């Protein structure tokens, strides 16, 4: 049914007319098919500023928002959760699909050991209780990218429950003003991913690629302990870092390895919780906070104008900067959960309960896994603070930027300069330079060795700090300049030249 559905949404006095393709679906999934086209001449909704505390109109009471998250992380494994076909991001359509993934009759699920280990590792890292017995269920809904008509998940008794995740948020304008929050983890469960739908509107059809069908997912459910977009984004970021440190998921949102759904409601403090909406299609770190804050504002606006919030599913349109209802004519979904009849309960052991003489390939020992957990981001930050005397907020920045920690550690290795000096240079000048040039750490024309040498020279007082900064400035124009400059300065210092001479040389080089 490709009928166009016209939706009107208003925020204050601004009206937006958006045409949405009739590609709604049940259950989980990115609404790839939902396209919004603005009619010509209509103004768009303004980008909403991020506000943590929602102050309402004069005379009205304060609002508090409640945000819970359901995060799906693709497990980093060679093969899928219940079949031996490959897990790989880009491949010819339907080439990584086994008979089981295509749901051909007579096929059965066979559980992948690596996925269970990944779930246990993640559960332990998030301080969960690992259930020694967990069960698999079927969750039924119809959609073309779910060939079986059901998804195998763990609804009744998941593999891990009752954990917590600590993250940090800024509480003031100064970078040093950070506060640690925790969010409770309700559960972690193993489940199958669905295939991918590509909506071909003009020909009124959907193209289905099952390469992703059956890939193992970890669903991490965060309790509604968060109250705004920034907190949610920070929690997700921290979870990303943990998953990457563990190696259980690459958690790359751009590649769809980490997907987030948010459950949002608002209420007056002291009163019962309000009706919640679910916002799907949050597949980018950038838009996560934006979408959540928009939805909070929208709900407050609706309630303040005497309207009710519908318990519905919405998606975020990043171009318009607003959430839209996802068409769901079927009303509340009935997934008809039933136990997966082809899989016995999943039993895990610890050292005490390990059955003697058991095949090591067939048993999973929680204690063994716990002893071999890699270092978590929290611990890494602690060590940086202790070892190098840096401030907590610096340790956060070092870990938050992809590749920056490794860069920093390489510079430390090769330089004699004080760690505090290195920290300051890497976080302020180097990172600032990268941001200005819009480069990632791995695209940096400045290598750790180069920076280390520069800092050595600075340390030896062979060059002044302003000269060193100018060297960095040079990078903007001429990528090879730094090597030339370093060579020159080195030559100059070997001959023990006057610092002013060196500065002259540098300036001459800079102007040439």
């Amino acid at each position: 049914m490709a009928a166009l559905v016209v939706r009107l949404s208003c925020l204050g006095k601004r009206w937006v007319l958006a045409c949405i393709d009739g590609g709604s679906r049940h259950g989980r999934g990115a609404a790839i098919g939902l396209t919004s086209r603005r009619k010509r001449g209509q103004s768009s909704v303004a980008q909403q500023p991020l506000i943590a505390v929602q102050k309402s109109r004069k005379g009205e009471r304060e609002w508090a928002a409640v945000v819970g998250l359901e995060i799906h992380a693709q497990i980093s494994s060679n093969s899928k959760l219940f079949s031996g076909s490959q897990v790989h991001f880009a491949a010819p359509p339907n080439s990584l699909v086994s008979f089981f993934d295509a749901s051909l009759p007579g096929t059965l699920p066979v559980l992948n050991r690596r996925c269970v280990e990944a779930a246990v590792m993640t559960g332990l890292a998030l301080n969960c209780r690992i259930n020694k017995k967990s069960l698999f269920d079927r969750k039924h809904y119809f959609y073309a990218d779910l060939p079986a008509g059901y998804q195998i998940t763990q609804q009744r008794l998941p593999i891990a429950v009752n954990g917590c995740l600590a993250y940090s948020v800024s509480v003031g304008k100064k970078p040093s003003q950070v506060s640690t929050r925790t969010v409770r983890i309700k559960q972690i469960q193993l489940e199958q991913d669905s295939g991918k739908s590509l909506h071909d509107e003009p020909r009124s059809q959907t193209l289905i690629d099952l390469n992703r069908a059956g890939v193992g997912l970890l669903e991490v459910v965060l309790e509604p302990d968060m109250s705004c977009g920034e907190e949610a984004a920070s929690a997700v970021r921290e979870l990303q870092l943990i998953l990457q440190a563990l190696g259980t998921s690459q958690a790359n949102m751009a590649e769809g390895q980490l997907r987030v759904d948010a459950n949002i409601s608002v209420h007056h403090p002291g009163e019962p919780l309000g009706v919640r909406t679910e916002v799907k299609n949050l597949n980018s770190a950038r838009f996560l906070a934006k979408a959540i804050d928009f939805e909070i504002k929208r709900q407050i606006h609706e309630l303040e104008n005497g309207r009710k919030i519908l318990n519905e599913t919405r998606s975020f349109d990043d171009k318009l900067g607003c959430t839209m209802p996802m068409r769901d004519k079927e009303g509340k979904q009935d997934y008809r959960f039933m136990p997966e009849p082809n899989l016995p309960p999943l039993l895990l052991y610890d050292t005490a309960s390990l059955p003697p003489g058991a095949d090591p390939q067939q048993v999973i020992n929680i204690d063994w896994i716990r002893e071999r957990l890699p270092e978590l981001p929290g611990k890494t930050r602690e060590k940086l603070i202790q070892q190098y005397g840096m401030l907590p907020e610096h340790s956060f920045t070092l870990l938050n930027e992809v590749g920056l920690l490794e860069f920093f550690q390489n510079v430390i290795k090769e330089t004699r300069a004080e760690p505090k000096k290195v920290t300051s240079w890497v976080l302020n000048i180097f990172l600032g330079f990268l941001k200005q040039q819009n480069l990632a750490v791995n695209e940096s024309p400045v290598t750790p060795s180069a920076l280390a040498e520069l800092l050595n020279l600075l340390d030896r007082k062979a060059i002044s700090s302003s000269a060193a900064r100018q060297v960095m400035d040079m990078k903007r124009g001429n990528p090879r300049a730094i090597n030339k400059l370093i060579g020159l300065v080195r030559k100059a210092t070997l001959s023990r030249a006057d610092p002013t001479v060196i500065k002259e040389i540098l300036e001459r080089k800079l102007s040439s």
Partner: protein
Amino acid sequence: MWARAVKLGLRSWVGWRRGFTSKADPQRSGRVTAEVIEHLERLALVDFGSQEAVARLEKAIAFADRLRAVDTDGVEPMESVLEDRCLYLRSDNVVEGNCAEELLQNAHRVVEEYFVAPPGNISLPKQDEQEPFSHI
């Protein structure tokens, strides 16, 4: 498998409804209402095309209801007859896949190695508008 899923779904659904309406209570009357049938047809895409099919469903429910005669106080429900079996763990190796051509042979329509489906879900028409269900 369909019958089992329908039965299980119906039992839990009926149990929920029992608290609200007495007319949709097959236990007492043994009848399954048109409303329930319509709901089931949407959920399971099963076509209860004739009165015989509905009668068969009612008999199936009555058959399952005989379980109530057993006293299960204090007994943990059995979730799976496989509960004593060991769940086999497979090593994480790639041993399948690479058979796109074979899989696509089953498809009614194919576009460049993609399966083709209609856009989105097509809603079932309401009870009064219903025609004999035709497959795509």
